[in-house]
C-alpha cells in the first residue's frame, strides 16, 4: 500500500472498508457513527494514532475497547494523570531487586553483575513499552491525555512518531507491529500542536437521536423500543437547555437501566421526576430542568 510509512514492515490492515468497521464494531456492541467508522478505518490504514476528543461519557474509552474486541487485539491502557512520568508510562528498573542481586553476588566480577542487573528480569515494563514489545495485534489506549503534564507529551511524541523506545542499557527497541493507537482527551487543556499533528483528530460529540436510540437499545436490550425513543427525545431536549453538565450517552444508558430496574414501562411525569438525578448530576441543573420543562 502506498501510504505505508517508510521503514515499517508491511502490516495487515485490520479492516477492509469503512462499512466493515461499522459492522464489526456493531457486532461487539459499539454502534459507530460515520465519523467514528471513517476515522477508525483511516487510523488503521494510514498507521497514525487517533486522537479522540469530546465531552465525558460519549464513548471515547469504550471505542478503544470495542476496536480491540472487534479485531481480536489485546488492549494496553495507559491512564494519564497529573504527575505521571516516564517511570510510570514507559519502563522502570526494579531497584530493590537489583540491590538484592548486587548484595547476593558479592565477589562476582563487575562486568558480570552489570550485565546481569540490567537484564529482562529486572525491567518493569509500563504500558507504552508493553504495547511496543507485544507480538500480537495490539490496541494502545492513552486515556485522558490532557491530564498528563507537557513533558509526557514529549515522550508520547517520540513513542507515537516512530513506535520505538530507547532503553540506554539495551539500545533502541522498535515495534514488531504498529499498535492501533487511540488517545483520548476531555479538552481540559490544549494538547501541543506537535502531538496533534501526528494524530488524526476525531471530535466525538453527542450522537443524533436515531443513533442514540440504537445505542441505548444495544446496551439495554430489554428496554421496550417506545420507551427508548421517549428517553432519547427527553435527553435531546435536556441537552438544549443551558446546563452545567449536559447529559451524555452514558447517562442515557444509565437512565434506561434505572427505568428497567424500577419496572417502569412509561415515562410519565412522576417517573421523570423520580429518576432525573440519574441524568443530571448537579442539583442546580436538576432544578433548572424542572423549572424550564414545567415538571412541578
Amino acid at each position, binding site marked *: 500500500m502506498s501510504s505505508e510509512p517508510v521503514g515499517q514492515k508491511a502490516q495487515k490492515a485490520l479492516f477492509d*472498508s469503512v462499512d466493515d468497521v461499522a459492522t464489526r464494531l456493531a457486532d461487539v456492541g459499539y454502534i459507530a457513527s460515520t465519523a467514528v467508522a471513517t476515522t477508525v478505518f483511516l487510523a488503521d490504514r494510514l498507521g497514525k494514532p487517533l486522537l479522540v476528543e469530546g465531552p465525558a461519557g460519549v464513548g471515547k474509552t469504550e471505542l478503544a475497547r470495542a476496536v480491540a474486541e472487534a479485531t481480536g487485539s489485546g488492549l494496553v491502557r495507559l491512564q494519564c494523570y497529573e504527575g505521571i512520568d516516564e517511570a510510570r508510562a514507559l519502563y522502570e528498573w526494579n531497584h530493590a531487586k537489583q*540491590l538484592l542481586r548486587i548484595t547476593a553476588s558479592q565477589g562476582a566480577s563487575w562486568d558480570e553483575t552489570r550485565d546481569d542487573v540490567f537484564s529482562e528480569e529486572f525491567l518493569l515494563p509500563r504500558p507504552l513499552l508493553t504495547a511496543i514489545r507485544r507480538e500480537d495485534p495490539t490496541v494502545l489506549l492513552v486515556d485522558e491525555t490532557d491530564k498528563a503534564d507537557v513533558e509526557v507529551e514529549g515522550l508520547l511524541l517520540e513513542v507515537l512518531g516512530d513506535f520505538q523506545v530507547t532503553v540506554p542499557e539495551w539500545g533502541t527497541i522498535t515495534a514488531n507491529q504498529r499498535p492501533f493507537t487511540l488517545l483520548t482527551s476531555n479538552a481540559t487543556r490544549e494538547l501541543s500542536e506537535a502531538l496533534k499533528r501526528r494524530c488524526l483528530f476525531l471530535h466525538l460529540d453527542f450522537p443524533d437521536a436515531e443513533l442514540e436510540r440504537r445505542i441505548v437499545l444495544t446496551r439495554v436490550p430489554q428496554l421496550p423500543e417506545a420507551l427508548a425513543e421517549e428517553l432519547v427525545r427527553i435527553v435531546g431536549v435536556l441537552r438544549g437547555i443551558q446546563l452545567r453538565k449536559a447529559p451524555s450517552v452514558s447517562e442515557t444508558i444509565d437512565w434506561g437501566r434505572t427505568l428497567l430496574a424500577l419496572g417502569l414501562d412509561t415515562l410519565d411525569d412522576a417517573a421523570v421526576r423520580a429518576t432525573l438525578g440519574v441524568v443530571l448530576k448537579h442539583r442546580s441543573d436538576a432544578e433548572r430542568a424542572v423549572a424550564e420543562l414545567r415538571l412541578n
Partner: protein
Amino acid sequence: MTAPTAGLPAHLVDFVGALRRTGIAVGPGESVDAAAVMAELDLLRREQLREGLAAAMLRRSGQRAVFDALFDLWFPLGQGAALGEVALPYAEDGSVDVEALRDLLAGLLRDGDTAAMAELARAVVDGLGAVGRGTGGQGQGQGGGGDRGEGGPGGRPSSWSAYQALNVVRPETLLARVLADLRRGRETQRSRARPDDPDAGWDSPFAEEVSRREVRERIASFRRMVTDETRRRGAEIRGREAAARTGVPKQGDRVDFLTANAEQLADLRRRVAPLARHLASRLAARRRRARRGPIDLRRTLRRSMSTGGVPMRPAHRRPRPGRPELVLFCDVSGSVAGFSHFTMMLVQALREQFSRIRIFCFVDGCVEVTDLFGPGNDLGGVMAEITARPGLVAFDGHSDYGSALGRLREGWPDVVGPRTSLLVLGDARTNYRDPNLAVLGDLAERARHVHWLNPEPQAQWGTGDSAARRYGQVVPMHECRTAAQLAGVVSGLLPV
C-alpha cells in the same frame, strides 16, 4: 516538481487555501494527510470523505462549523437544483401551492424526518428562493418538480435568497399546528392503551414542553438547511471564493464578546470554562515549585543507585498544586453590558477553580458579590441581583473607576495581600473622572500579580474618556475581545 494545476490535487490545495483564509492553520503535513485520506476512501461516499478530511485537517473541535460550510462549497452535493424525491406542490396555475407546501412541511416536522426535510429545503430554495428571474420569487413551474432550475424559462436567477424563501414558507408559524398534531397522536395512543382510565387523554405540561422544544429545534434545523442550500446555490453564481468570504460563519473563538449572538454566547460559555481551569493552574504554578513535599521513597532509592545504594540526596514528592487567592474586580456598568455577560461566565468558571476567591463588582460604588457565585448557582438571575445590591451605584450610575478603586481600598483594606492575584475586568472608560492611579499602583505593589482584561480593541484605548493607556502604565493590560485572545492572555500570564 511543479504545483498541480488541475484535477483532484489542485482542488484539494485550493480547499486548503480557503481553510487557511478563515484562520484554520492547515500545514503542508495536513495537506499530505488529506491527500492520503482521499486515496484510501471511496470518493463517492461524501459523508465519509467529509469525516476523513476533517480528521486529517482539523485540530480542534471549534473549527468544525467553518470546515463543514467550506466543505459544502468545495465538495458540493451536486450542481444546479439537485432535487431529491420530495418535490414542491404546484397549484393549477403553475405557481407554488403554499398551503400544500406548508402541509407537507408540517408532516415532516411532526415525524422528524431529517432526510426528507433536507430534500424539501433544496426544493424550497429552488422553487421560491430565486431572485431576479422574471417574476421574481414565485417561480414559474411548468413541468412541475424535477427538471426545473437549470433550464427554467426565466433563465438563471441573479442570486438566491433564504430570506425570501423562508418568508413564503414561514416555518415558525407551523409550531402550534405541529404541536396539536403531536398531542392528538399521543392522546389517541394513550386512550387506546388504557381505555378505562379517564385521565388517559390528558397531556401533562412536561410532555407538552418536551415536544415544543423538540419541534422548535426541528424548525431551526430546517431554517439552517435552507440557509446552507442558499449558500451552495449562490456559490454557483458568484463563485465559491466569494461565497466563502461572506457566507461562512466565524470560528467560535474569534467571535467578539461585545457582538456575539445567543448561539455564539452558548459556545463561548463552553470555551471559557476550560480557560478558567487553565488560568487557575497557571497562577498556582509558582507555588507548586516553591514548596517541598514529604520524602518520596521510590525516587530517593532510585537516586541512591548512583551513590552505591547510600541515599545521599533525598527526593521530595511534588506537593499538590496549591490554590492561590484571587480577587476579581469587575465593571458591570452599561458601557460594558455585552462584556459583563462574559465576565460573569469567567467569574463563575473561576469560582469553581479557586477556593479562596473574592468577587467585587463596581459602577461608581463597589460591592462584594462573592456570595452570589456559590457553587452550582444559576447565572441567569445573578446579574439582576448584582445590580440590585445597594452600594453598587454611589452617585449617578456612570462608571467611575477612580472612586470604585478608592472604595475597594477603604471598605476592604486587607483584601489584597502578598499572596493575592488581582484581576480587573473592564474597559477603563471612567467618564473623564479622576482615574485614581495611586490606589491602583498601591494595590499592584501589594498583590502578587495584577492583570487587567480590557474588552475594547487596543486602537481605542486612551481615546475619549478611556483611561486605558494611563492604567496600562501601572498594571499590565491585555486586550481581551474573543475567546482566542483570552486563551492567549492566559497562556502568556506565566511561563510554565
